[in-house]
Structure formats: structure tokens, C-alpha cells
């Protein structure tokens, strides 16, 4: 290292740049190293951006969504998605005019089934930052700006179509982001708490306590999760308010989710216990608590963050599955799983395939979090190049 740091001769500029890079690495702290390594992982970077975007959408759902989650219109049930046309061709030439086409309704005289026929003579202009329904952002500010929507308030613009009550599928999916993405976070938070405490105790003390906790984990892991969740969530009374059901579901999810994290923490504790720097600290007479908090915990945080990221998609999938079956979250709560309930059988999908759109949101969210977690795990591993 010293020989590299003081090159005797050589072509000045490039060598000194190399030295600078070298010293930069030597003095960088752990988080900087992880960040540099993570940055090289293109896919993980992209996934990270998508994840951040999803949480931003969740935060500003009222603003991003063109309508509120409950807005319905009896005249526009099962309206198919309208695609945005950016330009309009007229006899005078073309002009920039983002719009969607309107529909003519035909009601079958026998079955009263409504069919929509695209009517190219009717156009509804579409724009960004348009004025629409009023809403209260985070219950504080009354605003009426929406990221995207019909320029003229009241025009029926439904980019992803509507459901059986004429509610806007896009808006509902955006509102669903809030619940679905946060169920993962809250659930993982609880699992982390349980996992770190129990895994830490298990790994640090060993012996009988360790044995007991490990056996418990083994039993919990050998149980088939979905039937167990089904049984547990069937126990949630129908009369509970939505918020309480929401927390009950997250608690249920983390009841089994903590085992993976506990194993991870225990494994880390076991391998760190015999590391030289921990032994050195012990020989220097540092107190036990100090060793755990100052020396051991910092060197496993990055791993824990990675495994937490990898645990979130599992929770999102579980919530979606439970709500889809009708034993998780229930309307009026809007989550991706609740929305997919509308698409529960082939008949409803055949009439309105766009009802599967929230499923796309689930896939994107889960994919992004998986790639992000993978990238973080690779970046946090000092032995991998």
C-alpha cells in the first residue's frame, strides 16, 4: 500500500489521479463504500428509483390521482381504457392537442348490457397539473390540483377505464399504493423489532435460550403460511374499523415474517463473535453492551437493511393474496389486493380485463424491491467484488 501511495517516478498526472482514488477508498467509511459499489449496479439503481417513485406516489396519492378513490359515475360503468392521443389532425393541418376520444353508449334492449363504441368526433382535452376535485393533502392543505386529468373539470377521462360502479381504476390503484406499500413497511418494521431482539438474544447468549428460540423458528417455518394466515385473519371480527383491521393484518404478517430476520441476525452475531476486532475490543476491556452496540451492530446493519428490503415484497404479496380472498383488508379500504377482488373470476375479467391493472402495480413493486434488495445485499458484502 505504501509503495503504491508514493510512486517514485512515472507519468505524473495519471499516477497522482490513481493515488487520489486509492486514498479516497482507504479513508472512505463503510456507507460510502457500499454506495459506490451499489451505484455500479445499474439494475439495482433503477429499481431503487422505481421504489422511491412508488413511495412518492403513495405520499401524494391525492395529487397524482385524477379522481378520489370513491368518486363514481353511474353513467360510466365498465368504461374501457382511453388512450391519450397527443396530436390532432384537422383539415387545417395538425396541432399539439393531448386528448382522449369519447364514447357512445349502446344499451342492449334485452340484456340491458352497456357497450361502448369509441366516438372520434368527441374529444376531451387532457393535461398536466389540471384543476379537478378538491382534496385535503395529508388532511392539512385544501388543494384542487391534479398531476394529470381532464382539462375541463367533469369530462369523463379514465385512462385505465372504470370498474362496475364507474370508479376510475387508475386513481384507485394510485390510492391503493398507499396501503399496499405501507403494509410492507409496517409489517417489516414489526418483524425487524422481533427478529433483532430474539435473533440477537439467540445468537449472543446461545445455550438453552438459543435452542428454544431456534426450535420455535423451525416450527413456525414448517407451517404452511397461507392456510395459517387464512385461519388467523378469519379471526378478525367483521365489525372492526378498517384501521384496526389494517394493523391486525400487519401484525399477522410479521408474526411469521420475523423468523427469517431472526435467523439472519443470529447468524451474523455468531460469525461476528469470533472476529478479531470483537476479540480485540473484549481484550481491551470494553463492556459487553458497548461491544454489541458500538462494534457488532454497525457491521451488520447493512446486511439487515438488505434483508429487510427483500422481506417487504413477500409482505406485499401476502397482503394482496389475503385481501384478494376477502379475508384481509376489506372495502372501503383501497389496497391492490382489495381492487383485485373485483377481478376474481373469469367472467368479470372477460368483461373488463383492465381490472387486472392493480396486479401490474403489484408485479412492478415486487420486482423493484427484489432487485433493490439484491443490489443492496451485493453492495453490503465486503468479500464480493
Amino acid at each position, binding site marked *: 500500500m505504501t509503495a503504491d501511495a508514493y510512486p517514485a517516478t512515472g507519468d505524473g498526472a495519471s499516477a497522482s489521479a490513481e493515488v487520489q482514488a486509492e486514498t479516497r477508498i482507504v479513508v472512505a467509511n463503510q456507507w460510502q463504500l457500499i454506495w459506490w459499489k451499489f451505484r455500479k449496479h445499474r439494475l439495482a439503481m433503477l429499481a431503487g428509483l422505481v421504489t422511491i417513485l412508488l413511495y412518492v406516489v403513495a405520499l401524494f396519492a391525492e395529487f397524482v390521482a385524477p379522481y378520489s378513490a370513491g368518486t363514481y359515475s353511474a353513467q360510466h360503468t365498465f368504461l374501457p381504457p382511453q388512450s391519450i392521443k397527443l396530436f390532432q389532425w384537422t383539415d387545417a393541418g395538425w396541432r399539439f392537442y393531448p386528448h382522449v376520444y369519447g364514447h357512445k353508449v349502446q344499451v342492449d334492449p334485452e340484456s340491458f348490457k352497456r357497450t361502448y363504441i369509441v366516438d372520434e368526433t368527441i374529444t376531451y382535452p387532457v393535461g398536466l397539473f389540471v384543476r379537478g376535485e378538491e382534496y385535503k393533502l395529508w388532511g392539512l392543505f385544501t388543494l384542487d390540483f391534479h398531476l394529470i386529468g381532464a382539462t375541463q373539470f367533469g369530462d369523463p377521462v379514465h385512462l385505465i377505464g372504470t370498474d362496475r360502479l364507474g370508479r376510475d381504476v387508475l386513481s384507485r390503484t394510485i390510492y391503493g399504493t398507499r396501503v399496499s406499500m405501507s403494509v410492507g413497511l409496517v409489517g417489516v418494521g414489526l418483524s425487524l423489532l422481533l427478529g433483532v431482539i430474539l435473533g440477537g438474544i439467540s445468537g449472543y447468549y446461545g445455550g438453552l435460550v438459543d435452542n428454544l428460540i431456534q*426450535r420455535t423458528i*423451525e*416450527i413456525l*417455518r*414448517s*407451517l*404452511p*403460511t*397461507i*392456510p*395459517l394466515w*387464512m*385461519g*388467523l385473519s*378469519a*379471526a378478525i*371480527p367483521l365489525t372492526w374499523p378498517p384501521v384496526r383491521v389494517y394493523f391486525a393484518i400487519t401484525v399477522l404478517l410479521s408474526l411469521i415474517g420475523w423468523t427469517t430476520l431472526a435467523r439472519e441476525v443470529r447468524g451474523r452475531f455468531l460469525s461476528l463473535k469470533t472476529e478479531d476486532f470483537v476479540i480485540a475490543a473484549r481484550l481491551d476491556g470494553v463492556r459487553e453492551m458497548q461491544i454489541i452496540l458500538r462494534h457488532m451492530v454497525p457491521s451488520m446493519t447493512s446486511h439487515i437493511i438488505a434483508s429487510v428490503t427483500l422481506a417487504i*415484497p413477500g409482505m406485499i*404479496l401476502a397482503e*394482496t*393474496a389475503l385481501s*384478494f*380472498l376477502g*379475508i384481509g383488508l376489506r372495502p372501503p379500504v383501497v389496497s391492490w389486493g382489495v381492487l*383485485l377482488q373485483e*377481478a*376474481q373470476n*373469469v367472467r368479470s*375479467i*372477460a368483461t373488463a*380485463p383492465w381490472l*387486472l391493472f392493480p*396486479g401490474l402495480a*403489484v*408485479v412492478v413493486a*415486487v*420486482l423493484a424491491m*427484489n*432487485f433493490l434488495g439484491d443490489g443492496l445485499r451485493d453492495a453490503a458484502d465486503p468479500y464480493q467484488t
Partner: protein
Amino acid sequence: MLWYIARRIIYLIPTLLVVSIIAFVVIQLPPGDFLASLISKAEETVDQAQVDALRERYGLDEPIYVQYWKWISGIITKGDFGRSFEWDKDVSDLIWERLGLTVVISLLTLAFIWIVAIPIGIYSAVKKYTIGDYVVTVIGFIGLAIPNFLLALVLMYIAFRYFGQSVGGLFSPEYIVADWSLDRVLDLLSHLWLPVIILGTAGTAALIRVMRANLLDELSKLYVDAARARGLSELKLLFKYPVRVALNPLVSAVAWVFPALVSGSAITSIVLNLQTTGPLLYRSLQAQDMYLAGSLILLVSVLTIIGTLVSDILLAWIDPRIQLQ
């Protein structure tokens, strides 16, 4: 080896006991019981004396541990899982065929996962960082990210929209209640491919990643170089040593793939309307049919525990490096 198996089986007993308690507690959690929900649903007023008689008969007024004891001792001594209130039949009459179908679907899916994942995993590791590898990786991740039931819905929609057939169920209508015969088995097999593919995607995607990572670890080892230096052909070299070593973790993966399959099949079965344990459990939970629900949770758990045990024993048998102590 025998000693190892015997010890593992002895360890099984406390596990099963705890699992049975969990199953029983879970089904006791909902407020009220089956009779209460029956009365609330009944249109005419129910005679109180009749209700009391039913309560007495099913032992619903006794403390939980007495109920549990009656239930578990009946199972162990007589194979009697109690009575289903909703169906008015013995639970054991209802569950065995469905449990059998669950096992068949899970095992077939497991076979499907292995047959698909191993060759693709090997290909992906040998051709690391080629276009083929990237394609496989991306498809694998997407397979992991799509919930089973969503895949089921999409495939059902495609089959309905473009092939004009409904693909739900495990049997054609004429065979649903028929006795077992060769024709019925063939009919079953012709319906099984869809659930097997749907259930298998996530597991396949996961196993491809495991196989690829394992094989990559092995391929960089010195013994591979040594074998190559001695002039072994690449193909022979690959299959003679590294692939065999890399397969070991796949055997241990059975331990977590199997519970995931049984668990995942619960939801997929409800969507596809398969006659497995999933839909029955779902219905019994909603009706608070507690002995049926409890027995199903218990048996499905026992199934996964046995699956885990078998995979552990297989692993110990294949891999001499595993210490049996």
C-alpha cells in the same frame, strides 16, 4: 444413518404436538362458534332447548383444553377428526381425497420445478453474462414477482378469450363425483398441467437462481481446472463433478419449496376451483366449522413437516459431508 433418521423422527413428536395446539388455538380465535353463526343465519327462531342439546353434543361449553384433549385423543387413538357441522359428516370422510389431490399436485409441481429449473440453471451458469443468461434471469425474477393467483387469472382469461374454453377445476363435469377409474385418472392428468405450471413458476424461478449461484461457485474451484487440465471433455467435466455438487442444495431446497407449494396451492386452488384442501379450508373458516378447519390446518402442516423431514434425510443420504451428529 438409521440412528439419525430415528432421532429426527423422535424430534418430530414435540413439533407435531405444538403444531396441533397452534391449529386448535387458531380455529378457536374467532368470536362465537358455529352454532352462534348458524342461529344468526337461520330465518325462523331456533328452539333454545335444541341449541343446548347441540352444544352439549359437540362439547362446545367445555373449557378449551378439554375440547382440545377430546379432539386430539380421538385423532390419535381412532383416527377420528371430529364432525363437520356444516356438512354434517365426519371430517375424515371429507378430507382424505382432497388431501391426496393436494399431495399429488404438490409432488408433480416439485417434479416440474426440478425438470425445468436444473437444465436452465446449468445453462445460465455455464453461459454466464450472455444474452441467454440475462433473458433467463429476467424471466425468473418476473416469475417470482407475479402472485400465483394473478397468473392463474391471466392464464384463465387467455384460455377463455382465445381458446374459448374454461380451464378451472380438476375434472371434467362427468367425472367429478365418479368413482376412481383409469378414465378418471386420465381426465385428472389432462386438467393438472395448468395448476402445475401456475404453482411452479415462482419455485422454478427461485431454484434457477440457486442452481446458477451454486454452479458458479463450483466452476471456479481448482478441481475443475485440474480435471480440465487432464483433458476431460467440457460436457463430461461439467456433469461428472460440479453439477453433482451443485445439486445438493437443491435437495435441501425441497424443505422450503414444499411448504411454499402447499401454501401457494391454497389460493390458486380457490381461483381455479380445484378440489384440494385450500377451498375447503377457506369455506370452513368462513362457516366457523372448527373441527374441519382445525383438522385441515393440522394435516396440511403435518404434510409440510414430513416433506421437510424427507428432504433432510435425502440430503444426509446424498451428501457424505453432512455430519449426522
